[in-house]
């Protein structure tokens, strides 16, 4: 098995006396989709920011390809794509300009840029005619697709998503889940995804990391978590999710 591409190595982030996340050891292997789950306040977003280098650990280390992460290095930054809840789109730029922001700054040729935006729109099933719209004129699902396009613009090998589907209506959410899973599979990137929803985590990922109070409560497949919960919390978390038993259609 190849070594992890991105990992936390006994990383600790302190927020004040007695309040901290970690120490945590979490590793994402090349090409896999890793889901971080847990209740709110478990430290999911902190873990994601540590992995991204937006926060630096007070203890321990973040490793990229086994070496300490140099978060300030632009070439390192561009290996990451980051999607946040609601898309995090810049309201002063059109959808197209949001996607093309960094490539344009890197002086890509207009032809290359147009080609890339078209390809991303097709990949994320974003309507091309909406590219000229501003974020305030997009639906929630569309804004999230633009956020995904922007994260993928430079073809990073790591894609990190923080609750990408929170705050969407169920139909849009289901559509986007299908599209995201297809995109992850097509691109073969290493993906780390944060969600509070167990079903969604299991839909995207074989391997789940369940967090509680800034520590890993248990790591494994959904079956492992359900069959052999490490403690009462894991058991309660897994069983708090109810499946809907739909009757047969007439």
């Amino acid at each position, binding site marked *: 098995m190849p070594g992890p591409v991105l990992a936390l190595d006994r990383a600790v982030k302190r927020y004040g006396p007695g309040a901290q996340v970690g120490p945590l050891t979490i590793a994402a292997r090349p090409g896999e989709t890793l889901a971080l789950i847990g209740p709110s306040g478990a430290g999911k977003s902190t873990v994601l920011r540590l992995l991204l280098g937006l926060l630096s650990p007070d203890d321990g280390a973040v490793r990229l390809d086994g070496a300490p992460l140099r978060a300030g290095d*632009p070439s390192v930054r561009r290996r990451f794509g980051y999607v946040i809840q609601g898309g995090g789109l810049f309201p002063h730029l*059109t959808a197209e300009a949001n996607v093309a922001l*960094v490539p344009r700054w890197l002086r890509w040729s207009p032809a290359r840029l147009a080609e890339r935006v078209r390809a991303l729109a097709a990949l994320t099933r974003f309507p091309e005619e909406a590219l000229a719209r*501003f974020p*305030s004129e997009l639906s929630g699902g569309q804004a999230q697709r633009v956020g995904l396009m922007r994260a993928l613009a430079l073809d990073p090998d790591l894609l990190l998503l923080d609750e990408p589907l929170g705050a969407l209506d169920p139909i849009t959410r289901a559509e986007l889940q299908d599209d995201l899973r297809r995109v992850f599979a097509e691109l073969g990137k290493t993906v780390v995804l944060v969600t509070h929803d167990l079903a969604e985590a299991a839909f995207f990922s074989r391997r789940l990391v369940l967090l509680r109070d800034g520590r890993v409560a248990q790591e494994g497949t959904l079956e492992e978590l359900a069959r052999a919960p490490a403690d009462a919390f894991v058991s309660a978390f897994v069983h708090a999710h109810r499946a809907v038993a739909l009757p047969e259609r007439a």
Partner: protein
Amino acid sequence: MTLAALALAIALGAGAPPGAGPTVRVGSKTFTESVVLGELAAQLAASAGARAQHRAALGGTRVVWEALRRGEIDVYPDYTGTLWREILGEAPRDLAALRAALAREGAGATASLGFEDNYAIGLRRDVAARLGVRRISDLERFPRLRFGFTNEFLDRSDGWPALRARYRLPQEDVRGLDHDLAYRAIEEGAIDATDLYSTDAELRRRDLAVLEDDRRAFPVYQAVLVYRLDLAARAPAALAAIRRLEERISADEMIDLNARAQLDRVPAPEVAAAFLRAKLDVRPAVAADGLLRRVLRRTAEHLALVAVALSAAIVAAVPLGIWAARRRRAGRIVLGVVGVVQTVPSLALLVFMIPLLGIGARPAIAALFLYALLPIVRGTHAGLTGIAPELREAAASLGLPPRARLRLIDLPLALPHVLSGVKTSAVITVGTATLGALIGAGGYGQPILTGVRLASVPLILEGAVPAALLALAVQGAFDLVERGLVPRGLRGANG
């Protein structure tokens, strides 16, 4: 910036009348007699072929004297007693001694213009009659009388301090106010007594009793014209023409001239021209500007002040705001300092600039610049620190270098706040620039100032109406700029 440079060029060009001779700049202090005397000197210089300018009502004694020493003006009217006590700081002696003392400062003085303008104390006639007061020494018995003195009289060593010491005056209700306003305060019964000049136009009226200076507290003030000694070499003909005023104006004539300007509200240039025609047979070529030309010239002056000060303020304040937003502690200091500058009264700020930059447009622009900083710094700071956390994070994750991030993301997001700061500054600057006239910067303040001096509402409106219209136009122009610069996605988001 090109617009600013253009407006400045127009303003500077408009200040100098046509003519081929040497330039002679005349200054005057902020009261009617000084303005009339300055106008007389300027017209005489012009009649001798000089390109004469009159920077009317520049300020108090120190302001005008400093302007002369710096070469910003060449001539101004003053009084022997004032020169001795305020400028030289010595006990008064004769004119020869005065000339010798002034020569050490590079200045000369004409002979007396023919009249004295001494300090005097005027008491409301009804009060004087009721209390039986005829001499200043009588005032000692009435400690409840209310005095309203000009600020200069209050501060000058030969003014109120000397008077109070000499007569042991017990009055405590002593207020400082503008000379021309003092007469109205007397009229309305708000004060009982004020300081007068013995040639004041108001002495022609009946409601003031002039009290006898029975213990000789006030020195003698002979009117002279003070000039730079280099004028003799640079513009001998103009200086000779100006000297024709020596011994030609009697005290009664000066009271008449003051009354014409102050009570009959004849513009000072016309008052001066009429006197020169009648008395010296000089027919100065004073083409009085029409209203439109005056307003246009002042608009150019005013716009130049605003445009230069505002452009400089934008260039300085936006980086300051960025810096303040990046470093929290430094930011508090920056905001504090520009906030304190804002609390300095605008008049005081203008006067602070005089020792540093002299008089005219430069100190006014410097003061306006300082005033314009706060709204822009605050707007930039608020715009940048107000960026939503998720956008901050999204920006940080993109891997753009700080400068590119600022240009492509942070500043555009902050733009509505920055622009509204600039708009506020622009409107404030248009209004504050009217005060520039106090230190010779011209603009719409000039007629307002003269109008206040002469209690002439039409003159005040001649400055106030265009100033208000300009403020509205500036506001409208910035609304358009905002519409053009702020992308659709941000409009309405930041009010």
